[in-house]
């Protein structure tokens, strides 16, 4: 009788303790290489709680560059609703399924003026499109497949999977410049501070999106504060 009670108690307790301890967190940065069959520049970033939610975006520009030097435009797809986040799902190392919005981002620089003088225009191209971001090849490659868009493909530059405590946002560098090391500290702060005032994507420098934590298209004090809040 006692053993039955103990077994019942353990059965009730076990899922609770597992659900607390086994939260899995994922971070992935990648570089866009292709848009459809054409080469492209760009950046992809994912931060997710497995079986929970995800923050993901991909910014890309077809190779060839802008036809007018003073006007630079590229595309940004932003996950606005997560349907599924899984690790090791259907031969994918990471699988993120959800509803995406796609924007056309346009910087217009005033000729002959400092780079700071610009206008930023963001126009919505696609609203609520179903899409899947998948990482394959042992965390080597990623694909973003959004309905009515060509396939966006690239290579993984960095990823991290942890259990329990959430991954701290802001790990973008280390003594090995520009390579995350799993810790948020002065290396990340300095790396981001060096890019202070720059506009991600404006000069093909899409990697700057890794430091634009609030995705406001400028590396500013808000991004430094994000790192500052997560320094450990």
């Amino acid at each position, binding site marked *: 009788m006692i053993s039955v009670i103990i077994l019942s108690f353990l059965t009730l307790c076990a899922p609770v303790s597992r659900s607390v301890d086994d939260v899995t967190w994922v971070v992935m940065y990648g570089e866009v290489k292709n848009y459809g069959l054409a080469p492209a520049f760009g950046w992809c970033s994912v931060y997710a709680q497995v079986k929970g939610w995800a923050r993901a975006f991909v910014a890309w520009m077809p190779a060839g560059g802008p036809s007018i030097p003073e006007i630079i435009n590229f595309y940004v797809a932003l996950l606005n609703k997560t349907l599924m986040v899984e690790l090791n799902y259907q031969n994918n190392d990471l699988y993120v399924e959800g509803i995406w919005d796609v924007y056309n981002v346009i910087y217009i620089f005033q000729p002959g003026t400092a780079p700071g003088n610009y206008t930023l225009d963001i126009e919505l191209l696609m609203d609520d499109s179903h899409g899947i971001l998948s990482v394959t090849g042992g965390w080597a490659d990623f694909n973003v497949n959004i309905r009515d868009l060509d396939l966006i493909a690239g290579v993984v530059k960095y990823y991290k999977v942890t259990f329990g405590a959430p991954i701290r946002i802001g790990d973008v*560098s280390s*003594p090995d*410049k520009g390579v995350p090391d799993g810790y948020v*500290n*002065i*290396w990340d*702060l*300095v*790396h981001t*501070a*060096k890019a*202070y*005032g720059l506009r991600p994507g404006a000069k093909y420098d899409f990697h700057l999106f890794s430091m634009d934590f609030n995705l406001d298209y400028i590396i500013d*004090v808000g991004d*430094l*504060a994000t790192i*500052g809040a997560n*320094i*450990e």
Partner: protein
Amino acid sequence: MLKRSICFLYLSIFLLSLSIMVISCSIDNPPTNTISSIAVICLEPKTCWGVVGQNFTVNINISDVVDLYGWEFKLSWNATILDTVEVLEGPFLKNGGNTYFTSKINNTLGYMIVDCTLLGNVYGVNGSGTLTTIKFYVKTFGECQLDLYDTILVNSAEQPIEHIAIDGYYYTLVRDVAIIDLTASSTCVNVTVENQGTCTETFNVSVYFTRLGDPLIGTQTITLNKGENATLSFIWSPPIPGLYEIRAEASILWGEADTLDNVYTIVIQIGRSISSSNNQYESIHSSHYFAFAMFILGLIVLVPKAFNKNGKTQTTVIHISGSKLLLAENVWQHLIRQLRNLQ
């Protein structure tokens, strides 16, 4: 012969070229100083002290740094002794332009993480200066290491700067002076003072009597080393015979831990003695003695243990709430006579 001349010419040209190369190399690579200075990050002052209930500040300084773009340090302390009140950015990195400064303080575990970086694509700062000023609050007595660890200096190329970090040390200053004894006669008051703190103190010692409305007998300034004591003599002339309260006061030091023992009080009788022939004051009205006898009678009821059981007259000291009541031998003799007369 022509061949030998040509050979000699070639040899001369070769030697000349060699000389020019050696000279140019020595110009391109001037002799460097083999003793290169290394940056040092340290607390200033290295040993600091504070007083319970007060704040004190300490700087984190850097010296001999080249191209400093960003820095980080962690500092730990004993959280039962100190709390961090505030962490302010120092002026050093601002010499290079705008900065971003952030700090995290954990007063429960006793550590902080402080970071600062220049902004934009600028060159770092050279030289020496203050990175941070930290204000601590002293919660209690004690001493602890101010451990500077995980220090990182980064240059404008995002490369580490070699350096050394030097810890600091903190101790709580105990400031405590006390009057440990007080004796008085009709001509002199002797005050024994002691420095019970941890550092040398200079303070005033003042002596009063109460009969004429707290007139000051005198004040002397004394300097005592840690643990030292001294007896000061104050010459006085009581205006008339009577019962005097003598009070000695050591001035209260800033941040002094224990101020209760800075005041010492005794009561002394100045006047005619039956047994003593050299007493200066003979004409004391008997009513004074009677009033005094009533006072002493009250004390006998309240503090019976203060009396010697064999009935001998003696100098008796009664401690009441830290004050000392000193009754001279002749006072007791007068008291007993008055009591006999009453009977």
